[in-house]
């Protein structure tokens, strides 16, 4: 028996594209398609989604022909700390207010690097906060509440 050769990257890529195409096709089913003359909201997206899925199949088929390079290292620690930063900012900016929310968001992001020392991170986050408040809140006058309702007892 011959071992099946796979280019892992392309195999995952193909499957991802098919899944995305499938998702959009599924979503299109709930939309009115209309006719070529009067296209409904689902007409054009359905065409695109089908094309996307077909291209995914092509990539998947190509993956079985060549063996490519491996995917390489993944920035797991980076994802763990970088991605939650804007989410945290979004969740708390109204409640905590601009100043504390930004401070913690910057602090979370700072830990994405394994080289960051805790003290350094706090100092950096504080510096970023002071600078941003001066620039965005005072100088540019963006309408952010500096301290939100959650900070008041």
């Amino acid at each position, binding site marked *: 028996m011959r071992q099946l050769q796979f280019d892992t*990257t*392309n195999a995952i*890529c193909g499957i*991802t*594209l098919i899944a*995305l195409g499938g998702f959009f096709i599924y*979503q299109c089913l709930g*939309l*009115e398609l209309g*006719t*070529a*003359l*009067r*296209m409904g*909201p*689902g007409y*054009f*997206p359905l065409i*695109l*989604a089908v*094309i*996307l899925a077909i*291209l*995914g199949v*092509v*990539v998947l088929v*190509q993956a079985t022909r060549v063996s490519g390079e491996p*995917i390489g290292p*993944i*920035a797991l620690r*980076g*994802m763990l700390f*970088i*991605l*939650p*930063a*804007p*989410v945290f*900012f*979004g*969740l708390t900016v*109204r409640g905590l207010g601009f100043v504390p929310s*930004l401070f913690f*968001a*910057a602090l979370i*992001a*700072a830990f*994405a*690097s394994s*080289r*960051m020392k805790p003290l350094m*991170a706090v100092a*950096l*986050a504080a510096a*970023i*906060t002071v600078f941003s408040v001066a620039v*965005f809140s005072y100088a*540019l*006058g*963006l309408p952010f509440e500096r301290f939100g309702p959650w900070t008041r007892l």
Partner: protein
Amino acid sequence: MDLISNLALGFTTAASPANLLFCLIGVLLGTLIGVLPGIGATATIAMLLPITFQLEPVSSLIMLAGIYYGAQYGGSTTAILINMPGESSSAVTAIDGYQMARKGRAGAALSIAALGSFFAGTVSTFLVAIFAIPLTGIALKFGAAEYFSLMVVGLVSSIALAHGSIVKALAMVALGLLLGLVGTDIYTGTPRFTLGIREYSDGLNFVAVAVGVFGIAEILRNLEGEKSRSVLMAKVSGLWPTRDDFRRMVGPVLRGTAIGSALGILPGGGAILAAFASYTVEKRVAARPEEFGQGAIAGVAGPESANNAGAQTSFIPLLTLGIPANPVMALMVGAMIIQGIVPGPNVAAEQPTLFWGIIASMWIGNLMLVVLNLPLIGLWVKLLTVPYYVLFPIIMAFCSIGVYSVNSNVYDLYAVALFGLGGYLLVKLRCEPAPLLLGFVLGPLLEENLRRAMILSRGDPTTFFTRPISAVLLAIALAVLVVVFLPSVKAKREEVFQEEE
């Protein structure tokens, strides 16, 4: 003379103290971020875009244009000093520029790059001014079918210039178009692909998508290896090129400008192509081609002029047709739409101050780059020594503030995280994000024009082939597609992008 009075109008707009200030800030900020290794012009603009929203439309676009030139210039600086091009268009500069730096001629290389870019910028600004109006005249004859076909040309060209697999690039275009359609359907008011989240009914925020796919994905990629940068920090001394250097850079600069101006107009990212083309030409015409790769002045002067000229003339399709030629221009379209300006042929007629102001500011921005950055090179070099782990929390904070400030919509921040993850995934799967962004911007326009064209032709799809301009455009798109799939071109293309890595 119409041209002169128009340019005069432009210069009065662009030279108002406030606009000069914004142009200056833009150029400085652009250079500042552009100098940081691994962050190219697109990511820089995506991050700084939100800062400009509070401004008047003219000022904001002038500042954005400044950021663009600054970022490009910053990219060349890192290419020369530490052999790390921030943008693929300065990858060519790194070949000979870095060699010059190693021979202790870093200062001369930087000035040659700056002066060459300035000359190219001056010439191509005039080209934009001369050709913009006649092209708008043609553009006004465009109907829905022509617009549709033109956008197809733009999308197809973006595929041709993407790295790696063409099939994947096509898939990215399709995905981008689909993402662009998220939101309320304009004809029927039906919400599409919003997953029931009301906050997305106006569509996904363009800034959030751009910051996520280009900014955050880039940060994650840089965090992967976290090796300390081995910086050969060549001492920068002797900024001014010698008389002999000047003599040797004239030819390459002139040729580079011509090549860049011509290729920049092509939709799909002419600047990169221009830099490569110029390098090849210089190597061929050089008296001593063996110097190339060893620090040839022509190898810096030519490509730098070409990519700047290309960057400049890529504004032509944007200003006249509203079609972005590359991801940076796609960001510009996004910025214009947020400012309430629909890019297209009407801009020149309806908003002459804006139109000519931007053109004039291109030249002013280039002048500022030369005047300011040559003395500031020492400062930029210092910036290169700032460790990366200090930089990215700052970038993250600014991205978050920026995205939130657009609409005060917290769902935009969640979209940033989502698209950051998605963008990183795509990079890992070796898919190019640039066609995706172009598709995202063009998605709604493409659909609208398709539907309108079909209604106008009473459901007859042959309308795209029977209208002459539309037919020619589609033929161009088809030709580009056929050419990139040709085996010989495919091999050549892979070779070119291999060199670039």
